[in-house]
């Protein structure tokens, strides 16, 4: 009988489980630990303009997920305006529209951006160089001379861009550049020169993120392309590379703001940075995530169900503890998975209260069950009587502890009463048949298992992992399958069989 298929299944489960977890970690940036803090920027854009009194249409570029930043949530506030989001060529725009607007108008857009080093740009097509750039005299000669000069001192599009921009800085300006600057704005001029030299480039607008800044405006940058590569240049000094705190607001060479039916339009930005637990950041991110299969996530459920699932997904951990203790250690428990249910109750009650409550209920229950055994009842009736007794004990303890001002006592109601009744019944029979020692062994074993299961299930890291990585369930499954295949000795057997090895 070959065990190969078995190990294949286990390996498959492991691979899928680990793969799913790693995928979630990489793709959705779900952190491995719950305590990890993530920086989140809250950015608000305020659009102001004076409406002419007729219909008005406002179009504004929106930031999208890019290198280093991931858009978590976005909101708009624009009373009376219709709003649509447009998406074309990888750039996103918001379009507000209104039939009649007069006077000063304010439109708000706010976004939460997660600082995410793994985040990558959405693909944007490289702009085609404009075929023919037409200059008026005498600018045409000036332009070609400037290009000539920079071209001769460069080797590729990036060095060319750096040299060209460098020639426009204050200390290196020549007559040609000064002439060009009198007629054109610096950034469109640079883009135009680059395009004329056959280098793909576009003007992009970015926001420098600084904590607590208000009334900021976008700055212009030049994006230069060399085949698949691209680089950002500061038009002021020709420095290559993107500062870490630069958020590209508009990156496809289109206008940032377009207003029809209004004048004096401008957009200003205010921003705040704050740290929030990574798990929360992930949650808000996933809340708006797409419903693909790989994104299958508990987080897409309503909050109430999420809380329920948090507990359900912990059950395998408790069960794993039971399997470990029974298969590898050899601890005897009363009822196979009873300790897991007790551990669940401990999570609600906290450990000490739970332990005291459990011992009290079981001890009193055993005394009463002892009396019931004299009544010579049928089994089901007797267990039912024990259930009612357990409820009575729990009610009594709750009332008493409340009267004495111990609110912790009220939590005793979290215990699974039917399970407790069966525990009492079983222990009682055990006591009659095997004596108190066996009751102590099994009861102690159950409690020990319950406490260990509680510690495992209540561990913040384990809670985080089981809740956020569904792949872990498959890994647990594989582990339990492997444990179910273990033919070695149990820890306690090393003690049990010791006398045999002694002679």
């Amino acid at each position, binding site marked *: 009988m070959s065990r190969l298929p078995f190990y294949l299944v286990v390996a498959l489960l492991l691979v899928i489980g680990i793969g799913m977890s790693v995928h979630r970690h990489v793709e959705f940036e779900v952190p491995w630990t719950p305590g990890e803090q993530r920086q989140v920027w809250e950015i608000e854009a305020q659009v102001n303009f004076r409406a002419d009194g007729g219909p008005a249409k406002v179009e504004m570029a929106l930031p999208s997920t890019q290198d280093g930043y991931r858009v978590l949530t976005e909101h708009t506030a624009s009373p009376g305006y219709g709003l649509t989001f447009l998406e074309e060529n990888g750039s996103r725009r918001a379009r507000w529209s209104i039939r009649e607007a007069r006077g000063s108008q304010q439109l708000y857009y706010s976004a939460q951006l997660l600082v995410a080093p793994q985040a990558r740009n959405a693909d944007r097509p490289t702009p085609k160089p404009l075929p023919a750039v037409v200059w008026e005299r005498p600018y045409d000669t000036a332009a070609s001379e400037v290009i000539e000069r920079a071209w001769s001192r460069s080797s590729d599009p990036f060095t060319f861009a750096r040299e060209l921009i460098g020639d426009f800085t204050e200390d290196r300006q020549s007559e040609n550049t000064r002439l060009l600057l009198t007629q054109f704005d610096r950034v469109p001029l640079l883009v135009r020169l680059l395009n004329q030299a056959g280098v793909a480039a576009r003007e992009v607008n970015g926001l420098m993120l600084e904590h607590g800044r208000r009334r900021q405006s976008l700055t212009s940058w030049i994006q230069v392309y060399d085949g698949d590569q691209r680089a950002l240049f500061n038009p002021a000094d020709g420095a290559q590379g993107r500062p870490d705190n630069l958020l590209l607001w508009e990156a496809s060479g289109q206008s940032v703001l377009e207003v029809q039916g209004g004048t004096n339009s401008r957009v200003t930005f205010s921003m705040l940075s704050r740290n929030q637990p990574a798990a929360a950041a992930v949650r808000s991110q996933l809340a708006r995530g797409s419903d693909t299969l790989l994104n299958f996530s508990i987080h897409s459920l309503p909050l109430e169900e999420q809380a329920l699932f948090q507990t359900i997904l912990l059950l395998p951990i408790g069960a794993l503890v039971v399997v470990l203790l029974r298969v590898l250690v050899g601890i005897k428990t009363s009822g196979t998975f009873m300790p897991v249910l007790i551990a669940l109750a401990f999570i609600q009650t906290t450990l000490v209260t739970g332990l005291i409550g459990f011992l009290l209920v079981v001890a009193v229950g055993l005394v009463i069950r002892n009396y019931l055994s004299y009544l010579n009842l049928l*089994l089901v009736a007797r267990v039912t009587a024990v259930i009612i007794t357990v409820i009575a004990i729990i009610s009594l303890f709750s009332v008493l502890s409340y009267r004495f001002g111990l609110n912790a006592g009220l939590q005793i109601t979290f215990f699974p009463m039917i399970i407790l009744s069966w525990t009492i019944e079983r222990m009682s029979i055990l006591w009659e048949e095997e004596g108190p020692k066996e009751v102590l062994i099994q009861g102690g074993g159950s409690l020990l298992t319950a406490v260990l299961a509680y510690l495992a299930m209540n561990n913040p890291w384990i809670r985080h992992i089981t809740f956020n990585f569904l792949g872990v369930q498959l890994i647990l499954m594989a582990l339990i399958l492997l444990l179910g295949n273990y033919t*070695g*000795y149990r820890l306690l057997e090393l003690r049990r069989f*010791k006398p045999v*090895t002694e002679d």
Partner: protein
Amino acid sequence: MWTTPARLKAKGIIGMNRRNIRYIGRYNDRRLYPLVDDKLKTKLLAQQYAITTPALIGTVTTQFGVKHIREMLMGHAGFVIKPAKGSGGKGILVVERVDGGDYIKPSGSRLSLEDVERHASNILSGLYSLGGSPDVALIESLINFDETFGEYTYEGVPDIRVIVFKGYPVMAMMRLSTAASDGKANLHQGAVGVGIDIATGTAIRGVQFDRARHDHPDTGHELASLCIPGWQTLLLLAAGCYEMTSLGYLGTDMVLDRDHGPMLLELNARPGLAIQMANGEGLRPRLDLIEQQPEGIGAEERVAFAQHHFARRSELATTEAPPVAVSSV
């Protein structure tokens, strides 16, 4: 306090996990469990295969039937009431004799008819059965146990557990009840386990509470001279249980009756591992050897094979040579 897995392995000891996966899981078809878990079925099956069992006085199947126990017990001096689906010796009530209206247990304590009826009622309601399912109470006649063992036991009837693997008797032990075990034959409750040589039916080694013992704690009788009469018959009976149940890894519990010789008391599809302690030897080498044997061999050949290969010298005799010499004179 602790030993190492390597030393246990060297001794050939098998642990619970190995027993469950490698032997019970592989050789015991789940479908066949009811044959051994239900003592009534075992008994009826044993009769078909001409395997001797204690005589059945009657069965109680309904709570209504409990009221007729007294009539059923008329004329029987001693009897045993047991649940058909009990496990681990739970719920077995032994009544040695009836004195007037009272039923007297081997310990001497008296039970009224109501006590006996309540016990039967508890059995029916599933108190002692696996999973608490409703059960049937079996009433069997008491075994007239062989007086030769009087010195080796306290109150209870000593029984002999033989592990039968694929029809081969691989290891045997006798369980002697003690005061500590309250007359019960469960080793973990303090009964003395005596390893029995498969070849001769004589004692090899004795343990109580996992520690070596050379005498019975209550009667003080030494164990070395213990020898089971009708050993050959007993082994044949045990080996025959393989054909009867088709279970590959089987624990057979046998008793010796003064008049009828070895009898099958019950079968166990999940026999415990304490037998290794009583024998001071692991099961594994023997099980490995049996696994290499071909199928389809008759019971007698199997017994002969086992007796040839599993013969052992008594540790009791070698360690305590002088007392044995004295007692044998």
